[in-house]
């Protein structure tokens, strides 16, 4: 499942740092690599792994590759991480309060 892959991939602290750098918006590899204690090719490799796990998107802009957070990948993981009963009760509340307005 997608979230299992995402969890495995994010076990690596450098990958989490790379992902953190996309929080403020899409960035080119060069910008992502700046200040990280690993080489640019290594950062590219981490980005490929993150992309394969569905956590980032990639697009080309001329010769540059631009990476951004992939929202759906994050939502899948969050859905799994949320607690069972916390999650269930939130869904129950939404339903009980919605259905009340619909029925006499």
């Amino acid at each position, binding site marked *: 499942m997608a979230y299992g892959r995402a969890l495995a991939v994010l076990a690596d602290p450098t990958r989490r740092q790379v992902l953190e750098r996309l*929080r403020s918006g899409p960035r080119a590899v060069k910008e992502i690599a700046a200040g990280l204690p690993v080489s640019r090719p290594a950062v590219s490799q981490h980005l490929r792994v993150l992309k394969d796990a569905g956590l980032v998107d990639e697009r080309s802009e001329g010769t540059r590759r631009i990476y951004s957070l992939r929202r759906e990948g994050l939502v899948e993981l969050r859905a799994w991480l949320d607690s*069972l009963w916390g999650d269930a*009760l*939130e869904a129950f509340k939404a339903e009980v*309060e919605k259905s009340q307005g619909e029925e006499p």
Partner: protein
Amino acid sequence: MNQPIQIAPVHKSIRVTAPIERAFQVFTAGIDRWWPRNHKVSAGPLAQVRLEPRVGGRWIEVDEGGAETVVATVTAWDPPRHLALRWQINARWQADPTMASEVDVTFTVDDEGGTRVDVVHAKFETMGPVDGASMRRDVDGGWVGLLGLYAALLQGEGEGEGAGPA
């Protein structure tokens, strides 16, 4: 009987703007309308969730292929105030009729005509120390480090999405 270990129950509570009868009815007869589809033990995608309304009744998942899986058995049925279940899921999230952690759900009228719903999931120790702790963590949500990371990430990403869950 003495249990060699104790594992603290998980307690979650929520207030709903609805009379107690409706809250109980939607929680039980209406479970298919709200049970989160990502929380399941069936192999295939979840098509339906059913709760049989009596002591000894079953909580059943039906997957898209029509296969039925028993998730829990009703051990107390006192509408509209109380419902208890024997939770027949093991630590690997497989249906297992020998499992016996307990889920207790109470409905209480509050001062403003709404209903407070309390879920207490207990007796994890019946699963053994390792499996019980694992199940407790799974139903409570204990991935604090990753959750923190994701809360931070989604806060940066999700501007305009509105408030998160309470």
